[in-house]
C-alpha cells in the first residue's frame, strides 16, 4: 500500500459514517429523499431541497462526468508532493449531486470537461478509502 501518512484524512462523523463505510466497501452511497425523490451530497440530517428528514442511504452507480478540473502543480503540503501533478476535479454524478475528487488513471493533459468517469477507491488505511474517478473507456 502507498504511504498516505500526512495527508488530510477525512474524519467520519455520525452524519457521514454510512458514506465512509460504503467507501470502505468500495461502494459509493448517497442519501435519497423519500419525500421529494432527490439524491443529495454531502450527507445532511435533512433534505436540502424539501427539508424532509425522511432520508435513506442508497448505493449509486459511481458514474458521472467531469464538469471542471485543474492540474495541481504546486502541492498543498509535503504529503501530496509525490502525487504532483495531480488532478482536482468536480464530478457531476449521474444521480445529480456534484462532488470533488481526483481523476486518476489517465494523463492529466488528456483530460477534458464533459469526459465521462467512474468511481474507483484508493485505500488510505483500514478505516478510510477515498473515492477517486477514472475516465470511462468506450464500451465500458
Amino acid at each position, binding site marked *: 500500500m502507498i504511504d498516505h501518512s500526512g495527508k*488530510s484524512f477525512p474524519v467520519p462523523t455520525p452524519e457521514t459514517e454510512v458514506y465512509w463505510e460504503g467507501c470502505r466497501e468500495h461502494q459509493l452511497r448517497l442519501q435519497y429523499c423519500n419525500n421529494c425523490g432527490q439524491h443529495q451530497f454531502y450527507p445532511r440530517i435533512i433534505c436540502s431541497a424539501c427539508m424532509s428528514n425522511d432520508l435513506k442511504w442508497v448505493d449509486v452507480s459511481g458514474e458521472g462526468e467531469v464538469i471542471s478540473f485543474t492540474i495541481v502543480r504546486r502541492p*498543498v503540503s509535503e504529503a501530496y508532493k509525490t502525487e504532483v501533478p495531480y488532478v482536482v476535479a468536480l464530478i457531476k454524478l449521474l444521480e445529480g449531486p456534484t462532488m470533488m475528487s481526483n481523476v486518476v488513471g489517465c494523463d492529466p493533459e488528456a483530460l477534458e470537461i464533459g469526459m465521462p468517469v467512474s468511481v474507483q477507491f484508493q485505500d488510505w488505511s483500514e478505516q478510510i478509502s477515498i473515492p477517486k474517478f477514472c475516465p470511462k473507456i468506450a464500451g465500458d
Partner: protein
Amino acid sequence: MESLRGKVAIVGAADTEVGVVPGFGATQLCIDAACRALADAGLGKDQVDGLVTCNSMAEPYMYHAEAMAEYLQIFPRYCISVGAGGGTTFSILHHAAAAIVTGQCDTVLISMADSLRSGLSREQAMTMQSATGHSQFEIPFGPTVPAFYALIAQAHMAKYGTTAEQFAQIAVGCRQHASLNPAAQMREPISVEDVMTSRMIADPLHLLDCSLVSDGGSAVVLTSAERAADFPHAPVYLLGVGEGHGHEHISQAQSLTTSTAVESGQRAYAMAGLGPEDMDFAQLYDCFTPTVLVELEDLGFCKKGEGGAFVESGAIAPGGALPVNTHGGLLSHCHPGNPGSMFALTETVSQLRQQAGERQVPNAEVAMVHGQGGIMSSHTSLILGRENS
C-alpha cells in the same frame, strides 16, 4: 423599508506600509492602521464609539475587536470582529452603516490587518487558507486555493471560450495601475507573455495570475452623513450596498461561471439608483485573475461570456473605459488575507477625494467596490460617491 442611501460617509481612510513590514506583527499593523485613519479624520481615539476589526491568521484572538479596543484603551458601545476570509470581511461596511443609521453608534472605526508574509511560514499560509475547503469532502483531495479558483477558470474557458491570455491581461492591467502607485508591493511592469511563462500553479493559473502574500493593514472611519460635514476631508458617501451569498464550498456552487455578485450588484445599483454605466472606476476583488473576469460580467460591466474580450480591449487599464483596481489590487498592491478589500476601499476614498496623484482617475465621482470571500462564495458590492444625492 428605509434605505441606507447617502446616510453614512467615510471621513477617514488610511493604510499602513504594505508588503514586507518588519518589526510589526498583525496586532501592531491593526493599531497602526487605526491610528492613521483617526489622524486622517482628525479624531482622537475617544471620539469613536464603534470598533470593527477582522481576525488575524498570524495572531488570532478569540475576542479580536475587544483585544484591539483594550490595546487602544477605548471603550466602544459597538464592538465586533469578523472572522471570515478575504472580501467577506468587507460585508461589515454594510452592517456598520446599518448600526449608525439605527443609532447603535455614531462613529465607527473599521481597522483590519494581518501579517501573512512575516507572521506565517509559506506552508502555514497555504494550508490555513486552503482550510476553506470541506474537511471531509474536499481537503483530502489536496486542493490549494489556486486550484479552487482554477476550477472556475476552466469552466469559464470551456463554456465561453475565454483564454489564459485574457486572464493574464487582468494581471497586466493591475500591474499597470500599481506601477503608478508608490505604495504598491509590486511595481515592475509585466506583459501577457510574462504571465504566460511564469510557473504554472494550477492550470490555467500561472504564478502571476495569483495575488500576493503580504503584511499590511487598512482602516476607515465611518459616520452619519449629518456629522460628515465637520471633518478635514470631503466625505465619501455610501450610495448603495448589496450582498449575495451562494455557497461556502465550491463543490456545492449552483454555478461555476455565474456568481451571486449578480445579486449583490443588483441590490447595490437599486439602492443607489445607478447602473454599471455610471461607474467612473471599479475595484473588483482580484485574489486570482478569473475572479475579476467573472465579477466584470456579473456586475454588468459587460455581457456574460464577454469578460475576456472586455479585458483584452484595455478597458480596465489606466486610462481605459473602466479602470479596475487603481491601486494595483491584491495582484500587485498587496494581499494580507482577511483585510484584502479594505485597501480597495481606502484607494476609492483617495480617488473620490481627487487625491490619488499620478494614478488619479480624472473627475472621478462614483465608483463600485466589490469584495468576495470563500471561493466566489459570498459577495458585497458598495457604491461610493462624492455627493450624497
